[in-house]
């Protein structure tokens, strides 16, 4: 038997077993719908990820979470520092104004008009 005959024999058309076409058609019709609709299918696909993919996803999520947490904390500290600085400057300014008012009062003998002082409650605003 030469090569041509061997190929012809190997590639010879063969009839499928009985009911093969029906089974394939039925499966093609039902399976995708089932896969889309059931949560088991989704979960199954999710868990079909390999370990390395899972580790990568976890690492990325951790980095993102830590970064976001750090940025949030930094922003909070910054806003707090800003509020404290503004409050401290208000205190300094109001005491300076108080001293000036006293000087003016004593030099002119006028009645005092109390200077507005920031209260501790305002610091938290």
């Amino acid at each position, binding site marked *: 038997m030469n090569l041509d005959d061997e190929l012809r024999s190997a590639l010879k058309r063969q009839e499928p077993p009985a009911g093969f076409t029906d089974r394939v058609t039925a499966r093609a019709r039902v399976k995708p719908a089932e896969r889309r609709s059931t949560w088991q299918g989704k979960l199954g696909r999710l868990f079909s990820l390999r370990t390395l993919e899972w580790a990568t996803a976890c690492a990325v999520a951790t980095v993102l979470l830590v970064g976001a947490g750090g940025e949030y904390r930094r922003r909070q500290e910054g806003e707090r520092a800003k509020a404290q600085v503004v409050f401290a*400057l208000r205190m*300094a300014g109001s005491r*300076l104004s108080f*001293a000036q008012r006293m000087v003016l009062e004593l030099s002119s003998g006028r009645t005092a008009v109390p200077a507005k002082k920031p209260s501790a409650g305002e610091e938290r605003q």
Partner: protein
Amino acid sequence: MKRILFVLSLALICSVARMDAQLKINLDNLASKAKEVVDLSLDSAMLQTAGQFLSAEKSNEAKAKALISGLKGVYVKSYQFDKEGQYTLDDLKPIREQLQVPGWSRILNVVDNREGAEIYLKAEEGKTAGIAILAWEARELTIVQIIGPINLDQLSELGGRFGIPPVVVPDVKKKLTK
């Protein structure tokens, strides 16, 4: 080994010098009697952080940002009392003593009955390197210290902003350059 010792002693000298710059305010005995206590200690790192969050666009914040940019510290202690006579001016004595060292000069001392204020400036090479304000009323005692290159003009520029009453500052530059 000598180099390590030199670096260590330099660090020690620096830390002592920095401690000296900040007033030691030990008025814990008043805190228990006070209705309200404000105790703010803002070092240069904190001021730097705050500076990053102060907008350069908004006029109010831009002034404050410029003012604190070179500062090394801002310290505020304030006590408010329910009734009069909870403190005496002797309580301020240890603080005044710290301000009676070379470099510091009192530019204002005004006393009227139960109210008063003292303003001290620290000069270094003809420039203001710090301000200390002691102010008291019948039911309130406040000590403010600002360390760093600042002058009263800068502080007065904040008058009318952040709720600070407008301030007119007398010319104190002549006094400093004497």
